[in-house]
């Protein structure tokens, strides 16, 4: 009798979960309140481990030899001088671009503010690739681009207070509007089941070769233009229409400890509303 009751109970539980799953289907990455709550609960030990880890790293850092620090200091000073010279050159270039933009009445897209966030948990290896980050004192926005100095990391899919779950660009459900920096040919960068990146929908006649840098194109309404995604590692003929291109990611996902969340100045819904014929 008890077993029969348990059986019915199991069926009820499974049906409930199937309903929960099917409710998410129109937008597989759409976070819901339940997911946000679960993230908040589960992130507690993650924050604990992150705190212990940085504490241990801090203690270990104190034992670094003074000589190594001096050498680092010298190297950083030299690098600083070179960067200062580069900034001056770039400021000149920026002024020139601004003058030319004014001449042709071009307004560049607005860039968002960057918020530093600690990486609490990174799972780049399993079936679905995610990152849980903590931005103290900030409230991350859903769909906000996540990046580091080297390039694009992913986008925020679930927000729970100052915690956010990030979908990595290597996730098989992720896709990013991209272009080859040299030729400006556009395609879509997607994650694969093996954890690599591929550049899809690039026509066979387009000019692309190994070593080309691939950046965001900005046409997807999520990621601003110009963020490095990766480098072309392999180009194969593919099918009749498109190249088959494998990319080496610009970011080393194994060594992420801090990321930047870029605030979005334009919301996807606003863009849709602004497009004629879209509702």
């Amino acid at each position, binding site marked *: 009798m008890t*077993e029969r009751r*348990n*059986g019915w*109970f*199991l069926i009820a*539980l*499974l049906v409930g*979960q*199937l309903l*929960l*799953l*099917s409710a*998410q*289907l129109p937008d*597989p*990455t759409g*976070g*819901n309140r*339940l*997911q946000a709550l*679960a*993230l908040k*609960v*589960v992130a507690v*030990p*993650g924050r*604990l*481990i*992150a705190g212990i*880890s940085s504490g241990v790293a801090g203690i270990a850092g104190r034992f670094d030899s003074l000589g190594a620090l001096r050498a680092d200091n010298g190297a950083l000073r030299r690098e600083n001088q070179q960067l200062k010279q580069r900034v001056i050159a770039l400021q000149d270039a920026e002024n020139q671009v601004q003058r030319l933009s004014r001449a042709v009445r071009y307004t560049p897209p607005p860039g968002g503010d960057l918020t530093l966030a600690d990486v*609490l*948990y*990174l*799972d*780049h*290896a*399993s*079936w*679905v*690739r*995610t990152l*849980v980050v903590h931005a103290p004192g900030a409230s991350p926005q859903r769909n906000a681009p996540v990046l580091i100095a080297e390039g694009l990391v992913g986008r925020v*899919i679930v927000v729970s207070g100052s915690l956010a*779950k*990030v*979908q*990595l660009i290597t*996730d*098989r*459900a992720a896709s990013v509007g991209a272009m080859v920096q040299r030729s400006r040919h556009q395609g879509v960068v997607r994650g*694969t*089941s*093996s954890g690599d990146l591929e550049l899809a929908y690039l026509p066979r006649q387009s000019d692309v070769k190994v070593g080309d840098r691939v950046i965001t194109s900005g046409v997807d309404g999520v990621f601003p233009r110009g963020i490095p995604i990766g480098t072309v590692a392999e180009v194969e003929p593919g099918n009749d229409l498109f190249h088959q291109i494998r990319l080496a990611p610009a970011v080393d*996902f*194994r060594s992420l400890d801090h990321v930047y969340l870029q605030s979005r100045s334009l919301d996807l819904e606003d863009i849709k509303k602004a497009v004629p014929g879209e509702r």
Partner: protein
Amino acid sequence: MSAKGFTIGLVLALLVHFTATRLVPDFPRLVDVFLVLVVLNGLPGKTLPGMWGGLVGGLTCDALSGGLFGLYGFANTLTGYGTALVARRLVTQRAVGVLAVFVFAAAFQRATLFSLDWFLQAGTALPSLPWALLPVATSSVLGTILHGTLGRLQKRFQERRWRRASGHQGKR
């Protein structure tokens, strides 16, 4: 496993998962610690706690993963229930029996997970067979070792308690 034991196990599994992922980034690809906990919870052969344990363990996994929320919850609920049913029919006092239950549960969970994902999100690529089977093997071996170790520790603890109790009686 009692509810208290399961809760402690869940907290430990989370700590192990977070720490190991920090030290070895490929850890989640190799071992599913939450599955090990779900199977350990189902090994006594009680279906209701097995089912609940599966649900909680699965939803914890879902909170960490980026796919559909509830995918692991569904698979682990079924796995917890199935583990309890299979554990009743096998001799789980022997390591071979325990290993068989773990292999069944891990393979069943993977199969449920992939078929459900394929069914709900048709067209998405699934991991290759070796990478899909690797966690089955590693989780099964780890779970069997853990079960044996916990069993020995429990036995030793009980013996000590029994000796203490009989010692007190002897003094009287």
